[in-house]
């Protein structure tokens, strides 16, 4: 059953051919600054070093070479780093969904003392800039012996200030949830946990999709935290790894860097292409109340 606001209504198609063509032209032109850099990044990974700097700059390589691309895997344990990024992102995403859904549900549906004050506190935490707080966090992480492990990279995005946005999304979603379901479930004898797991969550798919994608992206592209906490190349995540392609003299290997960056982007784009609708729906509830 869908609430009224879940109906996706795009404008019905009543445009003349001329305006349709105009629309396509505008869209195509607007897409260029979004697409060209990614394309340039991709094709440059197949260029020999001197072509990347060539005047005037080109998109397609004149001399295709696989050398730069091949070095992605030889210069660093890229496959392992890819795996690191993925498993960390998966853990962060699942933990994030669960924990922020729990908190969002509580803020929306459970009356408890100080609820509003706590929520405002959480929102305030969202505004704390990371560059400063990283030092006390780093001190604590070092003291716990968790330096150069993946733990800070998992705990920070899941439990840290950036997760407040996820809590917010779930709260908004649960606020617009008809109360009748819960009352019916309570009559059926379900406790709070049961209601949450069996009634609320299954109907929260759009919010889950939205939070899931955002959490996954944030974790997958993490750079600053990885820079501070990780030291061994085998432990690196992708955001950090792609900046580390340097030859033994410290000169950047441009084609390789750009190729590695391309490889990190493509799978996510494919996922997004297919999961778009759920993502958009999930975002639909975001602005509604409170």
């Amino acid at each position, binding site marked *: 059953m869908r609430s009224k606001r879940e109906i996706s209504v795009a404008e019905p198609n009543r445009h003349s051919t001329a305006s349709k063509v105009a629309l396509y032209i505008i869209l195509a032109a607007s897409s260029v600054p979004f697409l060209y850099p990614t394309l340039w990044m991709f094709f440059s990974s197949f260029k020999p*070093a*001197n072509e*990347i*700097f*060539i*005047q005037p700059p080109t998109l397609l390589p004149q001399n295709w070479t696989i050398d730069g691309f091949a070095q992605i895997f030889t210069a660093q344990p890229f496959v392992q780093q890819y795996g690191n990024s993925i498993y960390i992102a998966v853990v962060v995403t699942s933990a994030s969904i669960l924990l922020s859904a*729990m908190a969002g549900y509580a803020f929306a549906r459970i009356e408890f003392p100080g609820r509003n004050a706590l929520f405002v506190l959480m929102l305030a935490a969202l505004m704390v800039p990371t560059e400063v707080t990283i*030092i*006390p966090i*780093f*001190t*604590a*992480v*070092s*003291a*716990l012996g968790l*330096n150069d492990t993946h733990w800070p990279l998992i705990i920070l995005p899941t*439990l840290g200030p950036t997760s407040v946005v996820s809590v917010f999304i779930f709260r908004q979603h649960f606020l617009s949830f008809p109360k009748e379901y819960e009352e019916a479930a309570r009559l059926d004898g379900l406790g709070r946990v049961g209601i949450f797991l069996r009634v609320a969550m299954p109907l929260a798919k759009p919010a889950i999709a939205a939070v899931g994608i955002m959490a996954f992206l944030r974790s997958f592209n993490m750079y600053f935290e990885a*820079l*501070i906490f*990780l*030291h061994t*190349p085998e432990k690196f995540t992708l955001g*950090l790894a792609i*900046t*580390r392609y340097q*030859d*033994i*003299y*410290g*000169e*950047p290997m441009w084609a390789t860097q750009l190729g590695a960056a391309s490889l990190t982007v493509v799978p996510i784009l494919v996922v997004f292409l297919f999961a778009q609708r759920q993502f958009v729906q999930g975002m639909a509830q975001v602005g509604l109340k409170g």
Partner: protein
Amino acid sequence: MRASRTKVAALTLTGLIAASLTACAGGTAPSGPVELTMALWSSNEGHLALLQQIGDAFVAEHPDEVSSISFEPVTNPDYIAGLTTQVAGGNVPDLAWIPESSALEFVNEGILHDVKSTLESTSGYDLNDILPAAIGGWEGDDGAIYAYPFSNSPFGLYVNNDLLAKAGQSDIASIVGTDAYTWQTVADLGAAVHTAVGAEGLTVPQFTPTNWSALTMLGTSWGAEPWSADGKTCELNSPEMVEYLKWYQDQVARGAMPEVTGSIASPAFAGGNVTFAVAQLSTSGALDDSLDWTFLPLPAGPAGYAPIIGQAGVSVLERSANPQQASDFLAYLTNPENAALLAQFFPPPRESLLNVETLQKAAPKLSAEEIQSVIIDVVPDATVKAANPVLSQFTDKVRAGLDPIWTGGDVTEAVTATCESISPIIEG
């Protein structure tokens, strides 16, 4: 839920307690063998393997003092930032590589441990073998020694002969050592190549607006220094520096040198599109036979020939928990035998090692003449980039002040404003 709530609380509490304990912990010198760590910026496997080999040999000889030595590259591309973060977080290495730009500052602030007595008392160390010009920047006023300058790499001029030939220009190596070998000549050739075939003329690869000293350092051959010898008076507005910077602007305007902006790197010499590059011998490692290149000493400016050298030192940190053991290892690492091993990668400061056979290993792609003229003849007299005891406090202000110059702004205005903004800081 209850379990995870308790876990999180416990973790947080532990973290806070541990953090405060670490901050409060003094250091009672541990008895028994200690573990030493050295921070460095290189992740080169060859470097690390050699260092580990020397480290293990030291441990074998002193098992009661040191149980292990580990070498930990700082992965942050900004070495000082990474080292500072590490130390701020409570992880203080015993030894560290120090870039020369930080040398004077670190010596002044007491960050480095004085190792002179250890070096003098180590038998066979031969302190006098170390060139005074090399170690000068690492000594205190009272004769203390704060680092061993393990790498002394002169700046030279890489020349792409293929491009010169393509543009129909003469071979430049023939005028080296004569009065005709000047920056002006080089710039003229660069402009000619740029006009003829579009390649870059003369580049200074390390130069970006943030790293402005890579350009101002070449002003020494115009007689220009950024500040007085004691570092307390700003001399960026001196007539010599103004003349040099105007010369730079002229070269950019005519295409002899490329425009430099932001944090963008200039094209690498190895790419084959650059006629002249001011760089050190490490750049030769990326070169191969596909390019006909030579490595020459720097040209002379209006005030003559001013060779410049880039240095790196290895020190014991004053905050180390084990300064004596670390100093002992430093003495071992840099004694004549091991210094010869290090020379495979880094041009040494020891006179006894400044010969072609030793240096050939550090620069396999250079010919014997190149090694002689660019390295051996240069190291004893070369000066390092001007250092200042409070450089890190004003380097960004200089960047902001000099920025207009790189895009053709008024030089005199810019350097005057820069001196105004940094004078309060350097006067101390």
